[in-house]
């Protein structure tokens, strides 16, 4: 038996009520992520079927609109934010106290917002160059997929703010801890999706 059922939680005695509860909500959240993954899956599939001359319909194609440098910066920002979230979790696990946890969560939030700023900047350049979703099926699919991920990041950011409020309000009680752990799952999940977007949409589109 390991010391904790859930790394980073330290909820109390093993197999106690707090652990049982955590197990249920964590499992539930995994199931939710699975469902969300299906959403991304079908949108990815839609995207893939439109990156062809018929879908592009004479409009701009991937090579005309993607700015790899900006996308690379976004990738770095997002991956680093996952790292800093991991550090926040470690702070929680080693009982470093509210201040450390909030600090690392704020860094995560800042990186996430940085990602969103670059992403929005890219989109507005595309719009300015006539690459709007109404131009072609390909662009419609692009603007369904990538901003959907961005929307998830934005929700994650709101969630981060709410969690920081709850940490200061309630302290690191089990309820807050399991919520943080779910948010961590969500945040890392967004990384995984982004890697898919980066490789399939951006690298694949420019290859």
């Amino acid at each position, binding site marked *: 038996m390991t010391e904790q059922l859930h790394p980073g939680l330290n909820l109390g005695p093993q197999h106690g009520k707090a652990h049982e509860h955590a197990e249920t909500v964590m*499992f*539930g959240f995994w*199931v939710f992520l699975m469902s969300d993954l*299906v959403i991304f899956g079908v949108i990815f599939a839609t995207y893939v*079927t439109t990156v062809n001359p018929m879908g*592009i319909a004479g409009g701009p194609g991937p090579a005309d609109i993607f700015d790899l440098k900006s996308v690379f910066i976004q990738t770095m920002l997002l991956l680093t934010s996952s790292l800093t979230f991991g550090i926040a979790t470690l702070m929680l696990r080693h009982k470093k106290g509210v201040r450390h946890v909030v600090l690392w969560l704020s860094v995560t939030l800042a990186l996430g917002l940085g990602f969103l700023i670059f992403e929005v900047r890219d989109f507005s350049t595309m719009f300015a160059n006539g690459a709007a979703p109404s131009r*072609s*099926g390909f662009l419609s699919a692009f603007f369904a997929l990538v901003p959907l991920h961005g929307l998830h990041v934005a929700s994650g950011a709101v969630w981060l703010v*709410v969690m920081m409020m709850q940490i200061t309000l309630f302290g690191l009680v089990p309820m807050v801890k399991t919520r943080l752990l779910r948010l961590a799952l969500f945040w890392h999940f967004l990384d995984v999706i982004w890697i898919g977007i980066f490789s399939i949409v951006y690298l694949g589109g420019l290859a």
Partner: protein
Amino acid sequence: MTTSADWGWPLGVFIPEQLSFVRAFNNPTTSELIGAGAASLVVLGGLALAVFLIWSGWWRPIWRDWLTSTDHKRIGIMYIVLSLVMLSRGVIEGALMRTQQAAGLNGGFLTPDHFAELFSTHGTIMVFFVAMPFVTGFINYIMPLQIGARDMSFPVMNQVSLGLTVVGATLVMISLVLGQFSTGGWTAYPPYTGKVFSPGVGPDYWIWSVAIAGIGSTLTGINVAVTIYKERAPGMHLFRMPLFTWTALCAAIILIFAMPPLTVSTLMLAMDRYLDFHFFTNDLGGNMMNYANLFWLFGHPEVYLLVLPAYGIFSEVFATYSGKRLYSYTSLVYATMAIAVLSFTVWLHHFFTMGQGANVNIAFGIATMVIAIPTGVKVYDWMATMFRGRIRFSVPMVYATGFLILFVIGGLTGVILANPTIDYQVHNSVFLVAHFHNVLIPGVLYGMLAGYHFWFPKAFGFRLSEGWGYVTATLWIFGFAFTFFPIYFVGLLGMPRRSVSYSDPAFEPFMLVAVFGAAMILSALGALVVQLLVSIRKRETFSVPLGDPWNGRTLEWATPSPPPEYNFAIIPTVTDRDMFAVAKAQGNAFEKPAEYEDITLPKNTAIGMMVWVSGTGLGLALVWQVWWLVLVCVIGMLVVLIGNTFRTDAHRVIPAAEVAAAHQAWLDQIAAATPVGRLGEATPHNKGLAAQEAVQ
């Protein structure tokens, strides 16, 4: 469409000519008058209900005990009430369409648009707001009791899911009064439902009611799956779960994986319509085949999501009323899982004729036919369960046998359709309409009605009148046969589905038989209402408070009727399948536990109602493009949902002493009661304590 420019922004694209009453006033044809009549039913019905609630003072207990409850049992019942209300609208629409087609040789009384609206609302309502809530309601009510749990894993989320489902139904009802519903069928295929071909608000009503309710269903799927995995009583390992719970698990898994494609396809359609995207348009790189794929990636698993829990109900019914263990439990479980998996592999049979190659068609045709194998296994298992059983031909058994016979016919016509060469001849004919009604009505609806009869005494503490039950069941079975068997023939004669009228006199005799059948179905619905009223009036005679009127086999019967909100005074320990039957045989079914403990339950909350209000507002605002209201509702909903996470006192405790007293009172009643044998089940002597017989 006329724009609202002269009305300014506050009402979006709404203009008074969109009110069905104004339309009927301006153009008083039969078709419009029927529409206005239906609309006034909604308005008057709503008003009458409100007046009644205020006058009788019931609104207070209804609010306190039901609308704000997080008890899975109450939520389950509310789902079923919703579906029965919607069923009455759906059946009336079905009968109206049959009447139109009976009079439809070169004409009839409905305009093509009105007919199109009818089959669109009818299909949408039947699938999303009758069958789905019915199934969800039973799962909600029964499953936690069967696995020995106190509640679902996420009781508040459960309430929110119900709220979201009701939003969808409310929007469909409102569409009768304000504007028009879609004319694009329950599948809402673009490009027809796109802006170019359907500029009105109809498809938007379809989109938002289905999308919002769909999110609720996804959450339900998660809730059910987690509950079954995490909340089972000690000893209830997977292969000791009652069959209904198994089917609930498979249905939940289908919900989790099949709802997302629906959400995505509807929202993409919305983006096409609202934001000029080009997913499914004819021009600029759109491709409607993507819609067909996404929709049926949901749509096909959907029908199994509906029928599997019905199989579960029939399994319980066959076992209970045959007084036997289910024959070959394991093969039934594996067949259930096989069907759940296979249901995801056949969606392409919905567009055999839309241009993919012959090889693809063959593969999907074969995959489709393969589903018949596990279904066949189940049919044999059910028959073997009855074989040498001590059968009581009670009302649920009438439905179950009606199902066995009719469903096999429906399944066979499905296998016929699974052959692409045949499908080329009859697809889009009413043969298809006959086929899917032949599986949906006996398969899903009879299952639900059997369950309604079977578990009603559990939920309310009194039985439903058996006499009226037989009347209703007979009317449903023969009504179905008269309505839909002729349709197979008309289909083979070549009548296209969704036709408002026809010019071939050969169709007419069949249509006249069908309308006779529809009248029988309408009477069945009436008999169902009468049965309920009669039973309520005689509830003293029919009362079964001790909880086990049918000599049940599974844990839900091991509680008083209706069960206390915490379900079990102490969580049972499970050592066997058919746990309750075994415990009764061993004589330890009603033992007093050594000690009781405090029980923690979630407090009541109005969050589900707030979601309903803001969700309905959101849907309406989106339909009518009232952007300020969209904003208000979205913010309102976010405040409610996020605010709820700040609640820290969401639980209350029921002291052990209170639990002990209630349990003891029930045990005393049991000790004082005379058990009733299976032949006395339908008599007033049946108070819910079954006489013991040897278990099989």
